[in-house]
């Protein structure tokens, strides 16, 4: 039982290092889209929410799960769409301005 937890902890710590490594390379000018984009990734709780909402265990658990699904989807869809909106502006490079 505890070994299971330790394995999860190992994955967590290693992923943390990957995250630190990758994110340090993001330039300051992209920090706002980085935040909203990584925010969308944290909407990955949608997985947990979906499982909990779909198990049909108890009525209360299902209700909480469905609200969780809605919350997580706001996070996911809102995060990705708003990030795309911002990055689209960064892509636009008017050639006229030299």
């Amino acid at each position: 039982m505890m070994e299971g937890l330790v394995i999860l902890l190992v994955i967590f710590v290693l992923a943390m290092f990957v995250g630190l490594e990758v994110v340090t390379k993001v330039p300051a000018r992209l920090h706002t889209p980085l935040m909203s984009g990584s925010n969308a990734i944290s909407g990955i709780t949608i997985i947990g929410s979906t499982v909990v909402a779909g198990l049909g265990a108890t009525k209360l658990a299902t209700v909480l799960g469905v609200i969780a699904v809605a919350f997580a989807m706001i996070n996911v869809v809102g995060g990705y769409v708003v990030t795309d909106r911002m990055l689209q502006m960064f892509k636009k490079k008017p050639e006229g301005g030299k």
Partner: protein
Amino acid sequence: MAALIELAYLAAAALFIIGLKRMASPATARAGNFLSAVGMLIAIVGTLLDRHIVSFQWIVVGGAIGSGLGLWMARAVRMTAMPQMVGILNGFGGGASQLVGAAEWHRLMQPGALLPLDTAVSIYMSTLIGGVTFAGSMVAAGKLQEIVPGRPVLFPFQHLFNLVLFLGGAAMGMYLLISPGRPEVFAAMNVAALLLGVLLVIPIGGADMPVVICLLNSYSGLAAATTGFVISNHGLIISGALVGASGIILTQIMCRAMNRSFTNVLFGGFGAAIAASGGSGGRGAAPRGVRETSAEEAALLLGYARSVIVVPGYGLAVAQAQHQVRELADLLEKRGVEVKYAIHPVAGRMPGHMNVLLAEANVPYPKLFDMEQINPAFEWTDVALVVGANDVVNPAARNTPNSPIYGMPILDVDKARHVIFLKRSLNPGFAGNSVLHGSGPCDQDFRAICVYLRSSAVA
């Protein structure tokens, strides 16, 4: 099937990492974000294949409502309101984690039965972190939107009270480990988490919100990771850790840019300190004298300069003047003036905010420079045009040890040959070495300057 689902999560995690990696350059960032979204889609589809899921209709209903709201928010939000937006999204992520924890607890709780220790600890962590993130983010967003007072709200024994609340929440979690069948204790723990979220953010001043938003970003990742521990899901853990790391880095960067320690931001009540010391900050600076200027004079200075560096601050965004800045820059460039933009790390209300605002006004990003890149260039610059910025150019940060911003890295505008400040009110603390000062709302100043530049007066 279970292996297939695990592989789907692995694919999703890999796509998230590649997506974040592509954020390293504006040219690839959009494609990276798209890849990340594809990863999310794979993860969701994979989850729906889980054979433990028996009813789909409610998932669809919840998902549709959430997606609709998210889409609407993302489309409607103004770029100036991006910090609030990120705060609210953070909050919903945290709220989802808390709800998953609560739902799992309710499902697994049998009167008299003991939860496995690891599951129980994960559930309590998930609800606690999720609750703090949810409530804290909503308060932070409220402060940024000015629904909640932006000034630090302080009351006696605040930190002590928070500590008691935190220990109380932890104690309730412990108690539940021994006797799990107590829904009222679990509910009380959730309330404590929410209350703690509110109380942790409410004493922090509006100026420190960028740090808080970064920190809550990190929390929302950690909340997702703890949810992963609850349901033993590797995908959640990896993704949560990535976001947690990202938030930690941004928090550090923000703290460094303001020369504040992390604990100082959280417990300092910084906004209060600034209000108390008023504008005394700049007295140590050798004043070169401030005088009012006219738009005509500013136009002359700018029009005959060889190089101009624009220093935008949040005031620019408040006045929605980024488009006028761009217009002015275009006029100047037509005259052969070299125009650059100097972006301080804390310009705007969140990391990188000013870059987004200028990108919205179609300023090409190669013209935007970070503080370290541009500071050496001020010496050879004819005019520094400071628009709606205070602290980030205040020399008090360099030479007034008792100033609240002392030690904060600043843009060296005072090294430029001329400095023009465009702002509504001239705070004596920050005007130590301004040479010229425009009056009136700055978008009007811009229009006036543009009019003079277009006219033959500056031929």
